[in-house]
């Protein structure tokens, strides 16, 4: 399947819809509104890319997710800040030990999943923000291998966690209890199905397929649920120095990717056959 770029949102600058220094996370709410985390703010855009609202976060925003209740979860250094649907702070889960640097957030059943880059692991939290168990550390290197300093994962409809393990050049599947269920991916420079460099993929999202982004060179690729390579969606459109490109899967095959150098969000749509 081929994709075409349909929209560019945000950009680097001081306008309200733009980002000054960082663009770190993307999420969609149930209405299809795009939430972007960057600098120390959350910005909400409508499907055409128009800024609808924005608000400040307590600390620089590192990741974002929107729950089915409409609550917005923002990952930060040593905490997760939770906003109600009216963008008012509802709770702050502080845990410097288990939430050292929260670079990814997701949901599985009644649990909240937090990617802790400081601990190189995924924490499964209960509804009160207490860590129930840790995922990704039951191996020889004591965690996910993330030289790029970012934990990234997606959760499929069955609650299976798909985590990027860039140092092992693969995407790993985990149960909520932390059992490694399987993995796909291998190092290869020439074959686009492979992951190149020291450490790829850097980001993962789950939708109709498994979407991943890479660095050096930056690429957005898609794989089937079985790990079968589906193709390169985009490459040249990213700044060559981009790394840790946040990726998000939307409805009807729409894919969002945030360029962390140009500080804009690129939207891709499958081409009609």
């Amino acid at each position, binding site marked *: 399947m081929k994709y075409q770029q349909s929209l560019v949102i945000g950009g680097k600058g001081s306008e309200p819809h733009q980002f000054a220094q960082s663009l770190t996370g993307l999420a969609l709410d149930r209405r299809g509104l795009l939430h972007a985390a960057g600098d120390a703010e959350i910005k909400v855009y409508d499907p055409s890319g128009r800024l609808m609202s924005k608000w400040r976060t307590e600390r620089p925003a590192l990741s974002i997710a929107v729950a089915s209740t409409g609550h917005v979860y923002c990952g930060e250094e040593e905490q997760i800040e939770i906003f109600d649907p009216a963008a008012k702070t509802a709770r702050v889960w502080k845990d410097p030990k288990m939430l050292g640097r929260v670079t990814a957030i997701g949901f599985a059943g009644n649990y909240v999943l937090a990617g802790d880059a400081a601990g190189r692991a995924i924490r499964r939290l209960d509804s009160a923000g207490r860590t129930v168990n840790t995922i990704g550390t039951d*191996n*020889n*290197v004591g965690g996910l*291998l993330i*030289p790029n300093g970012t934990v990234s994962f997606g959760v499929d409809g069955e609650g299976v966690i798909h985590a990027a393990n860039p*140092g*092992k*050049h693969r995407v790993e599947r985990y149960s909520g209890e932390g059992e490694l269920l399987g993995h796909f991916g*291998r*190092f*290869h*420079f*020439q074959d686009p199905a492979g992951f*190149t*460099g*020291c*450490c790829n993929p850097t980001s993962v999202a789950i939708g109709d397929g498994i979407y991943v982004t890479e*660095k*050096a060179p*930056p690429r957005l690729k898609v794989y089937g649920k079985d790990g079968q390579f589906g193709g390169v969606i985009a490459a040249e459109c990213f700044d*060559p*120095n*981009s*790394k840790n490109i946040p990726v998000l899967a939307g409805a009807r095959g729409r894919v969002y990717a945030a360029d962390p150098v140009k500080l804009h969000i690129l939207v891709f749509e499958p081409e009609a056959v």
Partner: protein
Amino acid sequence: MNQNVTRRAAVAALAGGAGFLAHKAHGQVVWQVNASKCINSRLGETTVEACNLCTSSCVVGLSAVRAVNEHSKCGRCNICPAYFNITSAVDEKGMPSEKLCPRDAITRKPIGKQDPEDPSNNFYEYTIDEEKCDGCGRCVMKCKEPLGLGSITLRVRYDKCVLCNRCAISTACPKDALEQIPLPAALEPGLARRTE
């Protein structure tokens, strides 16, 4: 125990380097590579081929400039683009089949608890043999972000530099990356020679 030995060796090497400098520099300035200017390590430089003017210009045999891996910054990756030629064919174990360094100056060894079955399930330490290195900059270029983490840089080694008044590398360098710095700055810990 090993850490203590390593620390003692590093301190001894630093003291030795200081002795060299005190003897050779007489309190004057010394030459050093500014990594933020060097084409091989400067972020944003997209040159594909490494600049090797430090090798070809220096009056010292092999060059007084050598590559140094700052271990605290190193990602300790299984597939290091500075160690392997990552564009080479993949072998039966899924690893690149060729090394990058033409002088085989980088050694790779697993550290910590080892998993012999799965090479990707280990951390690795990459050490540059300064006696083999000629400062060609290939590994520096490949270690640069975003491909690597930028832990490898080119450094003037003071036990090799003869402190020319007019450094031939500085004359040749298109980015003016060779700079004269005061002696105390030259002795900052990051410049200490690793002797592990």
